[in-house]
């Protein structure tokens, strides 16, 4: 029973967003009488943390505490249009739409506050704790709740805003393929360390070390969650799962979780990741999409590590133990040499 180790790397980019038939996303914001800000959108939460991040963006742009922001994304009767949650587009699109809507609502809020504080809107700022202050004039401040109440019941202002982020349709030139399909590019580089059991062909991924550049991380723990979840999916995609074990044939299609092979908790590699915070040029607060890319660099890094370990290039996924064993046997018989006992 020989265990051979190997290391491999891969570097990828990933586009944020898409255009398809033109990609509009709209957000609506309105303040309640007591200073609660309702954000209405139709972008769908899949578990990636969309509702969390978009509320952070709304609170930041309005300059109000996160607890006073309530986000609704569940009803096409009240929510404005969104193309949908895919292509790592949603935080970028809905985030920018929310910033535009927040700017509009904030402008009305500052008009009301300026009237109450007898100042000009340009002199005002928010402290993020629920107050509006006059710049440079200590003590002259008012709470957001008071401003919202007065706007409703004293001066009759609607503290509300609407915002859209629109990626125009980009028809593809039939001959050159010229097109403008996305908004910015995220990047990642992954190094995989693996171990091959040359008797069974089983492959274990020991460690995945990655550096990600995904713009400013608006919520670092959620970004890390996508990196770890995507790395696991990359291991599964490279070594375990397929709906067609004998592709392109359709035989033996798995019909349950016991037949559809995915790594369990015991097969998880050590995952370490560094996230560079280089702001993008057009994402909300410099953000870039991260959700879709996080399996993409682990997959080739593992395949390259396999070459380092046993000197065999694999061109088809998934790389199953029987493919590894067959490749080792062919390599050994071809060279009539024993498999190299290389341990890094």
């Amino acid at each position: 029973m020989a265990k051979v180790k190997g290391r491999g790397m891969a570097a990828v980019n990933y586009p944020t967003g898409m255009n398809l038939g033109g990609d509009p996303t709209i957000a609506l914001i309105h303040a309640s009488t007591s200073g609660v800000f309702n954000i209405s959108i139709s972008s769908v939460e899949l578990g990636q943390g969309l509702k969390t991040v978009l509320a952070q963006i709304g609170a930041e742009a309005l300059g109000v505490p996160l607890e006073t922001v309530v986000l609704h994304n569940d009803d096409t009767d009240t929510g404005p249009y969104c193309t949908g949650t895919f292509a790592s587009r949603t935080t970028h699109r809905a985030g920018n739409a929310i910033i535009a809507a927040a700017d509009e609502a904030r402008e009305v809020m500052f008009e009301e506050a300026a009237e109450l504080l007898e100042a000009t809107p340009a002199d005002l700022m928010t402290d993020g704790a629920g107050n509006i202050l006059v710049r440079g004039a200590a003590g002259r401040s008012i709470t957001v709740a008071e401003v919202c109440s007065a706007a409703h019941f004293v001066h009759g202002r609607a503290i509300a805003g609407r915002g859209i982020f629109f990626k125009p349709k980009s028809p593809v030139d039939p001959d050159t393929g010229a097109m403008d399909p996305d908004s910015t590019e995220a990047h990642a580089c992954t190094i995989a360390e693996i171990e091959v059991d040359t008797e069974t062909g089983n492959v274990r991924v020991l460690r995945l070390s990655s550096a990600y550049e995904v713009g400013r991380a608006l919520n670092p723990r959620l970004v890390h969650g996508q990196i770890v979840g995507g790395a696991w999916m990359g291991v599964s995609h490279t070594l375990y799962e397929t709906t067609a074990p004998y592709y392109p044939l359709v035989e033996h299609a798995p019909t349950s979780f016991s037949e559809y092979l995915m790594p369990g908790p015991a097969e998880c590699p050590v995952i370490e990741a560094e996230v560079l915070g280089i702001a993008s040029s057009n994402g909300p607060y410099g953000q870039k999409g991260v959700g879709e890319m996080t399996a993409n660099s682990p997959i080739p890094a593992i395949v390259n590590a396999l070459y380092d370990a046993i000197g065999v290039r694999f061109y088809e996924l998934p790389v199953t133990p029987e493919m590894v064993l067959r490749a080792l046997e062919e390599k050994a018989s071809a060279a009539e040499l024993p498999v190299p006992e290389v341990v890094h």
Partner: protein
Amino acid sequence: MSVARYVAPDTLEGIVAEMQEQEGSYAFMAGGTIVQPLLASGSWLPRTVIGLWRAPLGAIERVNGDVALGANARLRDVALEGLPGGLSDAARQVGGPAVRNRATLGGNIATGRGDLIVPLLALGARVTLASTKGTTDLSIDDVVDGATGEVSALAQGELLTRVMVPAKAERGVFMAVGRKAYNTPCVATVGVVANFEPDNRNVVKDVRVAVHGPQPWPQRAGPVERALAARELNAAAITDAVAALESVGDGFSDSVASADYRLKISGVVLRQALEKIAGSSRQ
């Protein structure tokens, strides 16, 4: 619904009476891990489902040198019992913890494909069946037809009630290769129980080898046993034993592994099992 009646008699006699009355149009449900998914998917099931869980068939008792395992014994309890021949090891690697709290020894055997059949074959277990004609005792070898995989002994009209295994077996091992550490479908499993000559601890006196890999069902590996009979369990004997696997079957393909890989891995697992037994015989 195809199923019209559900009964759960609290005695074996009550179950047998129900079997009599339904003349074959019934299905047993012990733990439910097999029948419930069929119900959920709308698959056809016989008119009556007989629940076995109320009947006193779950006990595990030590009976002068043997262990009597009730058909309703849960895999969790079989796993904790420290049974020889790798029987407890096999029980421990079936499904996840919740499945082992519910799945029973009887259900595992009745499918003809359960992971516990290999160690039971290696141990030479005996099973007791109850039927309208009384109880019969027979070897586990006769429950699953080695040539066809049919669960011939449990044809309609018979209920498995008890399994007897020796409390100790000189040297036994159960080994499996799956794709994951836990809760994994197996590529191949092997069970070996061997006794050695009293005067020469390396020479095989008698050996039972069971495998699930060469064929889509678990079976005794006669050619492998013959390759080991009366020989010193050394590298040469092990190599011959592994070679003998070829004549037991040529593997089978499913979503987890292809036929030739499964046969190769059956050989790998058999060699590991025999090396483990050879290793323990030298102490």
